[in-house]
């Protein structure tokens, strides 16, 4: 069995659980969209009565949920968070899993460099993230077929799915870097989860302030704005930033992993 095949096998079960969550969220969300859109005026008024911060936390501040695009953007806001948490889990797991399971003495005494092993583990886990984003597209297409909607939304779904993947790899790389930097695995995983939480809090702040300025650069959750994804394209500038940031974070993760002592965590 190849290293990547083994990693696929061991990551499959958690992937299926995450995919199940994604499936339920998208199908339940999209099927209910007709109701929300039918009651569009009422919903808008109702939400308008909420404090601004609550609306921002729900990701509804800058979108019109009486339209399908707006409704889908709000739904995707939660998928972004879901994907970020999953990516963070994948990143820290790729680095720390062998130490947590105490199988490091088996794997890292084989004639392969640490970087080779880590790169293969990351490729395998990255494939899960890619599959997760792709399934977001597929599930969205399937779910929307249950509705009687006018127009083709596949472009919107594709843009959101790509954006989810790009944001996901940033959190994946960030968590991998944390996991390679902290001695204790739980500290690395905690730092990754806190990064997701912190980034979301900043994203809420970004939505609330009139002139956020450079705040957008700090939170990957706002690299791709809902309004842009609904009507326009995936920003090449921020897509490039995601790739560059991920490359830099992974470079740090590899360097630190190469230098660290391997042991039970």
């Amino acid at each position, binding site marked *: 069995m190849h290293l990547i095949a083994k990693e696929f096998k061991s990551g499959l079960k958690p992937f299926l659980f995450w995919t199940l969550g994604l499936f339920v969220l998208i199908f339940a969300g999209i099927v209910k969209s007709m109701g929300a859109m039918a009651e569009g005026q009422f919903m808008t008024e109702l939400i308008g009565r909420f404090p601004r911060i609550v609306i921002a936390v729900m990701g509804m501040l800058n979108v019109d949920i009486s339209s399908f695009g707006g409704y889908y953007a709000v739904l995707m806001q939660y998928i972004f968070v879901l994907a970020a948490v999953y990516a963070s889990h994948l990143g820290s797991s790729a680095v720390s899993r062998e130490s947590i399971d105490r*199988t490091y003495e*088996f794997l*890292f*005494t084989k004639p392969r460099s640490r970087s080779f092993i880590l790169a293969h583990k990351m490729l395998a886990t990255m494939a899960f993230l890619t599959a997760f984003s792709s399934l977001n597209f597929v599930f969205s297409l399937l779910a929307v077929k249950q509705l009687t909607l006018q127009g083709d939304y596949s472009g919107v779904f594709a843009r959101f799915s790509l954006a989810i993947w790009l944001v996901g790899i940033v959190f994946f790389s960030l968590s991998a870097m944390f996991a390679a930097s902290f001695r204790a695995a739980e500290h690395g995983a905690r730092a990754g989860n806190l990064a997701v939480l912190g980034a979301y809090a900043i994203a809420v702040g970004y939505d609330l302030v009139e002139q956020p300025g450079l705040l957008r650069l700090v939170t990957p959750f706002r690299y791709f704005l809902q309004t842009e994804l609904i009507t326009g394209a995936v920003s090449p500038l921020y897509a490039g930033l995601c790739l560059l940031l991920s490359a830099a974070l992974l470079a740090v993760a590899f360097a630190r992993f190469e230098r660290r002592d391997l042991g039970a965590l």
Partner: protein
Amino acid sequence: MAYAIETKKLTKYYGKARGIVDVDLAVEEGEIFGFIGPNGAGKSTTIRTLLGLIKKSGGSASIFGMDCEKDKVKILSEVGYLPGEVFYYDNMRAVDLLRYSASFFKKDCTARIRELADTLSLDLNKKIEDMSQGNKKKVGIVQGLLHAPRLIILDEPTSGLDPLMQRTFFDLIQRENERGATVLFSSHILSEVQRICDRVAIIKEGRIVDLRSIDDLRKNSYKKVSFTTENPIADFSLAGVRQIAHDGQQTSFLYSGDINALLSKLASLPLIDADVSEPELEEIFLHYYEDGEAAK
């Protein structure tokens, strides 16, 4: 001459905590080299440094003349390692784990896996999670030997194996040695080391305190002496006597020195019985610790 293993002033600190200090080892190709010391003495730290699992703080370490850090990948293709505690992927069957292990080496290990599993009476189709600790250890032995390594590193290898299987294991290691493999055998159980090793290094508190052949260690070090007298002896003093113990009429101690001086001293006593024998390695080993305690 390139040694199978050579360390010079090898040092490892975990932050401020001592791991090993100035460890000098030279293991010749083809020998079975014992590495003994109690838990926490630095045996596993030395081994993990050799295998590149942890980074040294100072000194040098090489295997077959290659640097343990720079040439790690090349070295590991020649090394089989059995850790003290074995942890594998629970959801795998033994045969899958062993095939996975074999996939890292550029050779077909199928026949060898079967042969080793038969020798150890290991059921290859069983899942790792359903195995006893002893069977997991057997899987560990097979995965350590399946690529017929030139150097076998064993860290407390017999824990979890029953006495019969221990015997099989020692036979297996001796066969590997006859095939030409060098063996580094780390243990805190001295009788195991005594059983198969040619030479032994004794490590204590991170430092090598002695290095000699097993025969030399037994023959030239200490005699175990015990004698029984008509009346209990309150005082028995002779240069070279250690660990003296009185139990009624019986007195026992370890002796290192001129055997004639010992016999003269014994001859002056009203003896009922006397016995001079080779001490167990455990008893010899104790001195390295007593000396340390006395120095404190």
